[in-house]
Protein backbone atom coordinates (compact mmCIF):
# COMPACT_ATOMS: atom_id res chain seq x y z
CA UNK A 1 0.00 0.00 0.00
CA UNK A 2 1.42 3.37 -0.97
CA UNK A 3 1.89 6.02 1.65
CA UNK A 4 -1.16 8.24 2.34
CA UNK A 5 -3.45 6.49 -0.12
CA UNK A 6 -6.80 4.86 0.43
CA UNK A 7 -9.34 5.34 3.16
CA UNK A 8 -8.01 6.79 6.46
CA UNK A 9 -4.32 6.20 5.77
CA UNK A 10 -3.56 7.30 9.33
CA UNK A 11 -4.37 3.71 10.31
CA UNK A 12 -1.12 2.63 8.67
CA UNK A 13 1.18 5.10 10.43
CA UNK A 14 3.50 3.69 13.05
CA UNK A 15 2.36 6.24 15.63
CA UNK A 16 -1.26 5.17 15.25
CA UNK A 17 -0.41 1.47 15.39
CA UNK A 18 1.75 1.98 18.46
CA UNK A 19 -1.01 3.90 20.21
CA UNK A 20 -3.17 0.76 20.42
CA UNK A 21 -4.35 0.11 23.95
CA UNK A 22 -5.41 -3.53 23.68
CA UNK A 23 -2.61 -5.96 24.48
CA UNK A 24 -4.20 -9.39 24.73
CA UNK A 25 -3.31 -11.99 27.34
CA UNK A 26 -0.47 -14.34 26.46
CA UNK A 27 -2.77 -17.34 26.41
CA UNK A 28 -5.06 -15.92 23.75
CA UNK A 29 -4.12 -17.35 20.38
CA UNK A 30 -7.05 -16.41 18.11
CA UNK A 31 -9.12 -13.26 18.14
CA UNK A 32 -12.13 -13.41 15.82
CA UNK A 33 -14.74 -10.79 15.02
CA UNK A 34 -17.99 -11.74 13.31
CA UNK A 35 -20.27 -9.05 11.92
CA UNK A 36 -22.50 -8.06 9.03
CA UNK A 37 -21.83 -5.17 6.74
CA UNK A 38 -25.44 -3.96 6.87
CA UNK A 39 -27.73 -3.03 9.73
CA UNK A 40 -27.66 -0.32 12.35
CA UNK A 41 -26.62 -2.78 15.08
CA UNK A 42 -23.45 -3.69 13.15
CA UNK A 43 -22.05 -0.20 12.61
CA UNK A 44 -20.12 -0.14 15.89
CA UNK A 45 -18.46 -3.46 15.14
CA UNK A 46 -17.75 -2.41 11.60
CA UNK A 47 -16.04 0.75 12.82
CA UNK A 48 -14.19 -1.27 15.46
CA UNK A 49 -12.78 -3.49 12.72
CA UNK A 50 -11.95 -0.47 10.58
CA UNK A 51 -10.20 1.57 13.28
CA UNK A 52 -8.88 -0.76 15.97
CA UNK A 53 -8.11 -4.07 14.27
CA UNK A 54 -4.83 -2.80 12.75
CA UNK A 55 -3.71 -1.65 16.18
CA UNK A 56 -4.67 -4.97 17.78
CA UNK A 57 -2.82 -6.97 15.15
CA UNK A 58 0.23 -4.71 15.48
CA UNK A 59 0.29 -4.97 19.24
CA UNK A 60 -0.29 -8.75 19.20
CA UNK A 61 1.85 -10.12 16.38
CA UNK A 62 1.53 -13.70 17.64
CA UNK A 63 -2.26 -13.71 17.70
CA UNK A 64 -4.36 -14.75 14.74
CA UNK A 65 -6.88 -12.01 14.09
CA UNK A 66 -9.80 -13.17 11.96
CA UNK A 67 -12.93 -11.45 10.71
CA UNK A 68 -16.07 -13.31 9.64
CA UNK A 69 -18.25 -11.14 7.46
CA UNK A 70 -21.94 -11.74 6.81
CA UNK A 71 -22.02 -15.13 8.50
CA UNK A 72 -23.86 -14.29 11.67
CA UNK A 73 -27.29 -12.97 12.68
CA UNK A 74 -25.80 -10.64 15.30
CA UNK A 75 -22.22 -9.42 15.73
CA UNK A 76 -19.88 -10.96 18.31
CA UNK A 77 -16.20 -11.25 19.24
CA UNK A 78 -14.70 -14.58 20.24
CA UNK A 79 -11.26 -15.13 21.81
CA UNK A 80 -9.76 -18.62 21.79
CA UNK A 81 -7.23 -19.54 24.49
CA UNK A 82 -4.37 -21.94 24.00
CA UNK A 83 -5.95 -24.49 26.36
CA UNK A 84 -9.20 -24.65 24.41
CA UNK A 85 -11.24 -22.25 26.49
CA UNK A 86 -12.92 -19.41 24.75
CA UNK A 87 -14.68 -16.24 25.71
CA UNK A 88 -17.58 -14.84 23.72
CA UNK A 89 -18.41 -11.15 23.76
CA UNK A 90 -21.75 -10.04 22.37
CA UNK A 91 -21.21 -6.64 20.73
CA UNK A 92 -24.67 -6.09 19.32
CA UNK A 93 -25.49 -2.39 18.83
CA UNK A 94 -22.39 -1.16 20.72
CA UNK A 95 -20.07 1.64 19.72
CA UNK A 96 -16.44 0.92 18.90
CA UNK A 97 -15.20 2.72 22.03
CA UNK A 98 -17.51 0.67 24.26
CA UNK A 99 -16.31 -2.54 22.67
CA UNK A 100 -12.65 -1.63 23.09
CA UNK A 101 -13.16 -0.60 26.70
CA UNK A 102 -14.90 -3.84 27.53
CA UNK A 103 -12.21 -5.89 25.82
CA UNK A 104 -9.53 -4.04 27.77
CA UNK A 105 -11.38 -4.87 30.97
CA UNK A 106 -11.79 -8.56 30.18
CA UNK A 107 -9.20 -10.00 27.80
CA UNK A 108 -6.31 -7.54 28.09
CA UNK A 109 -3.04 -8.25 29.88
CA UNK A 110 -3.07 -6.67 33.31
CA UNK A 111 -0.65 -3.76 33.38
CA UNK A 112 1.44 -2.71 36.37
CA UNK A 113 0.84 0.59 38.05
CA UNK A 114 2.43 3.08 35.66
CA UNK A 115 3.67 5.14 38.64
CA UNK A 116 5.96 2.33 39.77
CA UNK A 117 9.68 2.77 39.36
CA UNK A 118 12.72 0.61 39.91
CA UNK A 119 14.07 -2.64 38.47
CA UNK A 120 11.74 -4.21 35.90
CA UNK A 121 9.49 -1.17 35.70
CA UNK A 122 8.99 1.34 32.99
CA UNK A 123 11.57 3.68 34.52
CA UNK A 124 14.49 2.63 36.68
CA UNK A 125 14.53 5.79 38.81
CA UNK A 126 12.05 8.44 39.89
CA UNK A 127 14.61 11.09 38.97
CA UNK A 128 13.62 10.62 35.33
CA UNK A 129 10.37 12.45 35.99
CA UNK A 130 10.35 16.18 35.49
CA UNK A 131 10.21 18.11 38.75
CA UNK A 132 11.77 15.35 40.85
CA UNK A 133 15.12 15.82 42.53
CA UNK A 134 17.94 14.37 40.45
CA UNK A 135 19.95 11.52 41.86
CA UNK A 136 22.59 12.86 44.31
CA UNK A 137 25.20 10.80 42.48
CA UNK A 138 24.58 12.86 39.36
CA UNK A 139 23.79 16.28 40.78
CA UNK A 140 24.73 17.18 44.33
CA UNK A 141 21.76 17.76 46.62
CA UNK A 142 21.04 21.33 47.68
CA UNK A 143 22.87 22.26 50.84
CA UNK A 144 19.84 22.46 53.09
CA UNK A 145 19.26 18.77 52.48
CA UNK A 146 22.78 17.65 53.27
CA UNK A 147 23.65 16.63 56.78
CA UNK A 148 27.10 18.08 56.41
CA UNK A 149 25.58 21.56 56.27
CA UNK A 150 22.35 20.92 58.13
CA UNK A 151 24.02 19.65 61.28
CA UNK A 152 26.93 22.02 61.18
CA UNK A 153 25.94 24.15 64.17
CA UNK A 154 24.95 21.38 66.53
Amino acid at each position, binding site marked *: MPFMKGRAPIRRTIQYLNAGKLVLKDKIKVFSVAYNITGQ*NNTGTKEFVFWYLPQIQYKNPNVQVATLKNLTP*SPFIKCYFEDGRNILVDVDNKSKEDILEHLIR*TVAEKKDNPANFGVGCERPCICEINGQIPCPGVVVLPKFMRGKFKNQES
Partner: protein
Amino acid sequence: MISQKALSKRFIPGLIQIAEAHRKPRWLPVAKSKVFRIPKRPVVSEEERLELLRLNNNYKTQMRAIRRFYHDEMIHDKSTRESASSEMSLRLEAEEWEKCVELNEQWNKQVALERQERRKLEVVAMDEYTLNRMEQKDAVRKQRIEKASEEIRKEKELSKTFITPETLDAAIDAAIANPTDYNYAIDLKGNQYLGRETPISPPKEEKQSASV
Protein backbone atom coordinates in the same frame (compact mmCIF):
# COMPACT_ATOMS: atom_id res chain seq x y z
CA MET B 1 64.99 15.07 19.82
CA ILE B 2 61.30 15.72 20.35
CA SER B 3 60.40 16.00 23.97
CA GLN B 4 57.71 13.83 25.54
CA LYS B 5 55.38 16.75 26.17
CA ALA B 6 55.79 18.05 22.66
CA LEU B 7 54.95 14.57 21.33
CA SER B 8 51.85 14.19 23.42
CA LYS B 9 50.81 17.69 22.42
CA ARG B 10 51.28 16.76 18.80
CA PHE B 11 49.23 13.57 19.06
CA ILE B 12 46.62 14.84 21.49
CA PRO B 13 45.97 18.45 20.59
CA GLY B 14 43.89 20.38 23.08
CA LEU B 15 45.21 18.45 26.02
CA ILE B 16 47.79 20.83 27.38
CA GLN B 17 48.35 20.21 31.06
CA ILE B 18 49.64 16.78 31.94
CA ALA B 19 50.66 16.26 35.52
CA GLU B 20 52.51 12.97 35.53
CA ALA B 21 56.00 11.52 35.72
CA HIS B 22 58.10 11.49 32.60
CA ARG B 23 57.42 8.11 31.06
CA LYS B 24 58.04 6.31 27.82
CA PRO B 25 54.90 6.10 25.69
CA ARG B 26 53.69 2.58 24.93
CA TRP B 27 54.45 2.80 21.29
CA LEU B 28 58.13 3.63 21.65
CA PRO B 29 60.59 0.73 21.53
CA VAL B 30 62.83 -0.27 24.37
CA ALA B 31 65.42 2.37 25.18
CA LYS B 32 68.75 1.85 23.56
CA SER B 33 70.50 1.63 26.90
CA LYS B 34 68.10 -1.10 28.13
CA VAL B 35 67.99 -3.29 25.05
CA PHE B 36 70.40 -5.86 26.37
CA ARG B 37 69.41 -5.64 30.00
CA ILE B 38 68.17 -9.01 31.32
CA PRO B 39 66.10 -8.70 34.47
CA LYS B 40 67.16 -10.96 37.25
CA ARG B 41 64.83 -13.91 37.95
CA PRO B 42 63.39 -13.82 41.44
CA VAL B 43 64.87 -16.62 43.50
CA VAL B 44 62.28 -18.47 45.57
CA SER B 45 63.54 -21.08 47.94
CA GLU B 46 62.04 -24.53 47.85
CA GLU B 47 60.54 -24.16 51.36
CA GLU B 48 58.87 -20.89 50.51
CA ARG B 49 57.50 -22.27 47.26
CA LEU B 50 55.96 -25.25 49.04
CA GLU B 51 54.54 -23.02 51.74
CA LEU B 52 52.97 -20.66 49.13
CA LEU B 53 51.59 -23.64 47.23
CA ARG B 54 50.01 -24.99 50.40
CA LEU B 55 48.49 -21.62 51.26
CA ASN B 56 47.21 -21.14 47.75
CA ASN B 57 45.70 -24.61 47.66
CA ASN B 58 44.03 -24.02 50.97
CA TYR B 59 42.65 -20.72 49.80
CA LYS B 60 41.32 -22.20 46.59
CA THR B 61 39.69 -25.12 48.35
CA GLN B 62 38.00 -22.93 50.89
CA MET B 63 36.77 -20.49 48.29
CA ARG B 64 35.42 -23.30 46.17
CA ALA B 65 33.56 -24.73 49.13
CA ILE B 66 32.03 -21.37 49.99
CA ARG B 67 31.05 -20.72 46.39
CA ARG B 68 29.46 -24.12 46.07
CA PHE B 69 27.58 -23.65 49.32
CA TYR B 70 26.07 -20.35 48.18
CA HIS B 71 25.32 -21.68 44.72
CA ASP B 72 23.47 -24.68 46.10
CA GLU B 73 21.58 -22.49 48.49
CA MET B 74 20.56 -20.15 45.69
CA ILE B 75 19.32 -23.01 43.54
CA HIS B 76 17.37 -24.45 46.43
CA ASP B 77 15.83 -21.07 47.21
CA LYS B 78 14.96 -20.51 43.60
CA SER B 79 13.25 -23.86 43.18
CA THR B 80 11.14 -23.39 46.32
CA ARG B 81 10.25 -19.86 45.33
CA GLU B 82 9.31 -20.95 41.83
CA SER B 83 7.05 -23.72 42.97
CA ALA B 84 5.34 -21.38 45.40
CA SER B 85 5.03 -18.61 42.85
CA SER B 86 3.75 -20.95 40.16
CA GLU B 87 1.01 -22.17 42.48
CA MET B 88 0.28 -18.60 43.40
CA SER B 89 0.26 -17.45 39.79
CA LEU B 90 -2.01 -20.34 38.79
CA ARG B 91 -4.43 -19.40 41.53
CA LEU B 92 -4.25 -15.73 40.58
CA GLU B 93 -4.85 -16.58 36.97
CA ALA B 94 -7.85 -18.73 37.79
CA GLU B 95 -9.27 -15.92 39.91
CA GLU B 96 -8.72 -13.44 37.13
CA TRP B 97 -10.36 -15.75 34.64
CA GLU B 98 -13.37 -16.07 36.90
CA LYS B 99 -13.59 -12.32 37.23
CA CYS B 100 -13.30 -11.74 33.51
CA VAL B 101 -15.92 -14.34 32.71
CA GLU B 102 -18.28 -12.82 35.24
CA LEU B 103 -17.76 -9.35 33.81
CA ASN B 104 -18.32 -10.65 30.33
CA GLU B 105 -21.48 -12.49 31.30
CA GLN B 106 -22.88 -9.34 32.81
CA TRP B 107 -22.09 -7.45 29.65
CA ASN B 108 -23.61 -10.17 27.48
CA LYS B 109 -26.77 -10.21 29.56
CA GLN B 110 -27.06 -6.47 29.27
CA VAL B 111 -26.54 -6.63 25.52
CA ALA B 112 -29.07 -9.44 25.17
CA LEU B 113 -31.63 -7.40 27.08
CA GLU B 114 -31.03 -4.37 24.92
CA ARG B 115 -31.26 -6.48 21.80
CA GLN B 116 -34.57 -8.00 22.91
CA GLU B 117 -36.01 -4.55 23.47
CA ARG B 118 -34.69 -3.38 20.16
CA ARG B 119 -36.10 -6.42 18.41
CA LYS B 120 -39.49 -5.76 19.98
CA LEU B 121 -39.47 -2.21 18.68
CA GLU B 122 -38.35 -3.40 15.30
CA VAL B 123 -41.13 -5.99 15.14
CA VAL B 124 -43.69 -3.33 16.05
CA ALA B 125 -42.33 -1.02 13.37
CA MET B 126 -42.36 -3.82 10.85
CA ASP B 127 -45.94 -4.73 11.73
CA GLU B 128 -46.98 -1.14 11.29
CA TYR B 129 -45.24 -0.94 7.97
CA THR B 130 -46.81 -4.14 6.63
CA LEU B 131 -50.26 -3.15 7.88
CA ASN B 132 -49.89 0.19 6.17
CA ARG B 133 -48.89 -1.44 2.97
CA MET B 134 -51.71 -3.95 3.15
CA GLU B 135 -54.20 -1.16 3.74
CA GLN B 136 -52.87 0.78 0.81
CA LYS B 137 -53.07 -2.26 -1.41
CA ASP B 138 -56.61 -2.98 -0.23
CA ALA B 139 -57.67 0.57 -1.01
CA VAL B 140 -56.20 0.37 -4.48
CA ARG B 141 -57.91 -2.95 -5.12
CA LYS B 142 -61.24 -1.58 -3.86
CA GLN B 143 -60.91 1.39 -6.16
CA ARG B 144 -60.24 -0.86 -9.09
CA ILE B 145 -63.23 -3.07 -8.28
CA GLU B 146 -65.45 -0.02 -8.03
CA LYS B 147 -64.22 1.26 -11.34
CA ALA B 148 -64.80 -2.12 -12.96
CA SER B 149 -68.31 -2.46 -11.50
CA GLU B 150 -69.16 1.01 -12.70
CA GLU B 151 -68.07 0.03 -16.18
CA ILE B 152 -70.11 -3.17 -16.01
CA ARG B 153 -73.16 -1.17 -14.95
CA LYS B 154 -72.75 1.15 -17.88
CA GLU B 155 -72.33 -1.74 -20.26
CA LYS B 156 -75.46 -3.37 -18.87
CA GLU B 157 -77.41 -0.22 -19.45
CA LEU B 158 -76.10 -0.06 -22.96
CA SER B 159 -76.86 -3.70 -23.55
CA LYS B 160 -80.60 -2.89 -23.56
CA THR B 161 -80.14 -1.23 -26.95
CA PHE B 162 -78.07 -4.05 -28.36
CA ILE B 163 -79.41 -5.80 -31.48
CA THR B 164 -80.20 -9.41 -30.75
CA PRO B 165 -81.47 -12.12 -33.11
CA GLU B 166 -84.97 -11.44 -31.78
CA THR B 167 -84.84 -7.74 -32.43
CA LEU B 168 -82.88 -8.07 -35.68
CA ASP B 169 -85.88 -7.77 -37.97
CA ALA B 170 -87.25 -4.78 -36.14
CA ALA B 171 -83.83 -3.13 -36.28
CA ILE B 172 -83.56 -3.77 -40.00
CA ASP B 173 -87.02 -2.33 -40.52
CA ALA B 174 -86.17 0.71 -38.49
CA ALA B 175 -82.93 1.19 -40.42
CA ILE B 176 -84.69 0.94 -43.75
CA ALA B 177 -87.43 3.28 -42.60
CA ASN B 178 -84.94 5.91 -41.46
CA PRO B 179 -82.10 6.05 -43.90
CA THR B 180 -79.24 8.16 -42.72
CA ASP B 181 -77.03 9.95 -45.10
CA TYR B 182 -73.81 11.34 -43.71
CA ASN B 183 -72.81 13.06 -46.94
CA TYR B 184 -72.91 16.81 -46.96
CA ALA B 185 -71.67 19.75 -48.94
CA ILE B 186 -70.31 23.09 -47.86
CA ASP B 187 -70.66 26.39 -49.73
CA LEU B 188 -68.22 29.25 -49.58
CA LYS B 189 -69.83 30.70 -46.47
CA GLY B 190 -69.50 27.47 -44.50
CA ASN B 191 -73.16 26.47 -44.68
CA GLN B 192 -73.56 22.72 -44.39
CA TYR B 193 -76.00 20.91 -46.70
CA LEU B 194 -76.69 17.41 -45.35
CA GLY B 195 -77.57 14.56 -47.72
CA ARG B 196 -76.34 13.54 -51.09
CA GLU B 197 -79.51 14.32 -52.97
CA THR B 198 -80.82 17.23 -50.95
CA PRO B 199 -82.07 19.91 -53.26
CA ILE B 200 -80.07 23.04 -52.75
CA SER B 201 -82.17 26.05 -51.97
CA PRO B 202 -79.97 28.93 -51.04
CA PRO B 203 -81.43 31.05 -48.24
CA LYS B 204 -83.40 34.10 -49.45
CA GLU B 205 -81.77 36.67 -47.24
CA GLU B 206 -78.49 35.85 -48.80
CA LYS B 207 -79.87 36.53 -52.24
CA GLN B 208 -81.33 39.84 -51.15
CA SER B 209 -78.19 40.97 -49.59
CA ALA B 210 -76.28 39.90 -52.70
CA SER B 211 -78.66 41.87 -54.95
CA VAL B 212 -78.40 44.94 -52.79
